[in-house]
């Protein structure tokens, strides 16, 4: 367990120092959300009606953007071999990378999302639930994305492949999260949707690192 925290600290420094990854995901989210009104039209009623979906799909894509090279650098420069030889479990390696990714990409989304939601006329009553859905949902996106990143480790063309792999797995969190926000916007209780989302998180927390580790271990053919 101590190794996990030691890994997370290093992975955080690596991501923050590289600068590009952290900022790129946020910039992508902002740009994507900003583009929608030009496509859908500025009318508040229409935008407001689909705002929750736009926020969440953009958040999902932003998570994917910075996910592709999650393990790639450590794989290419031999760090992965050294970590495994140092007795660090593949699960800890996966969990540390996913945690660092969420802290740098998922968490900031929570802060930027309300601003972007206002931009696209999200109904007033839904802001609190939106943040709750992102707080519960973005870790799920990072966890599932982490499995995809581990699967494409060492593959020839990673980018598009990663999106194809995780798209089906992103459907449940997307449905429950947007469902919760829509319910709140209509004045209904978002509880059932948020509980399902929390359920997904509770399942993904232990299972995703195990699946990602299984994929990482395939490096040791």
């Amino acid at each position: 367990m101590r190794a996990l925290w030691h890994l997370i600290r290093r992975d955080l420094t690596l991501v923050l120092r590289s600068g590009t990854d952290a900022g790129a995901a946020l910039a992508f989210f902002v740009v994507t959300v900003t583009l929608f009104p030009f496509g859908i039209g500025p009318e508040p009623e229409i935008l407001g009606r689909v705002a929750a979906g736009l926020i969440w799909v953009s958040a999902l894509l932003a998570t994917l953007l910075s996910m592709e090279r999650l393990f790639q650098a450590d794989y290419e420069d031999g760090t992965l071999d050294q970590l495994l030889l140092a007795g660090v479990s593949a699960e800890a390696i996966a969990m540390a990378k996913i945690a660092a990714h969420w802290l740098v990409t998922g968490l900031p989304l929570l802060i930027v999302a309300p601003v972007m939601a206002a931009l696209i006329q999200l109904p007033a009553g839904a802001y609190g639930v939106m943040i709750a859905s992102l707080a519960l949902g973005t870790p799920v996106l990072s966890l599932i994305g982490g499995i995809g990143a581990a699967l494409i480790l060492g593959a020839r063309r990673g980018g598009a492949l990663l999106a194809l792999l995780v798209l089906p797995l992103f459907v449940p969190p997307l449905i429950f999260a947007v469902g919760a926000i829509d319910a709140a916007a209509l004045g209904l209780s978002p509880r059932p949707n948020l509980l399902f989302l929390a359920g997904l998180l509770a399942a993904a927390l232990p299972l995703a690192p195990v699946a990602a580790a299984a994929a990482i271990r395939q490096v040791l053919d």
Partner: protein
Amino acid sequence: MTILSAEKIACQRAGRLVFRDVSLRLDAGGAIVVVGRNGAGKSSLLRLLAGLLKPLMGSVRTEPSPDDQRRMFGYVGHHDAVKPTLTALENLVFWAGLADRREARARAELALEAFDISQLADLPGRILSAGQKRRLSLGRLLVAPARIWLLDEPSVALDREGVRRLEGEIGRHQASGGGVVVATHQDLTIAGAETLDLEAHRPGQRTAGG
């Protein structure tokens, strides 16, 4: 006292038999120098001994010893595992801290000194030369002590003085009861080193023992 033994191991890479019927025994304080032309499987053998690769046939066994707390393998491969955005010292402190949190920084500084790269401590990894990165990679062996060193062409990119320091560290490691398996083209002076020639184990070879 044998600390590592391999019985009739064979290795397959991407569907091809790289070598077969390779057996070796490494004693505490001993050393084995693996030779063979390119593609003979030297790197594969080391990765196989380290457990980074599963043997197609045969088995690898290590003899744990109660009084030696060090972890089993220290491996230096072609990739130096140096993070470009971390400084040389930060790179080593990470590996030192992973092995044992106590005085990680002090141990890292000692390792930099041992390979004469203390002056690079605060420079980011990306501007280090290949030789300096290799010294940093060798430094990792000192901050995360292991009983058996598996070194894959460690002297590549090292200057003469670097090679001298490498040989010194190997000697000290042997004296501490550790073992060394080195794959190399350059002849390193290593005390009591046996030679394992992978040429004799090529799959196509119709050797008597084959």
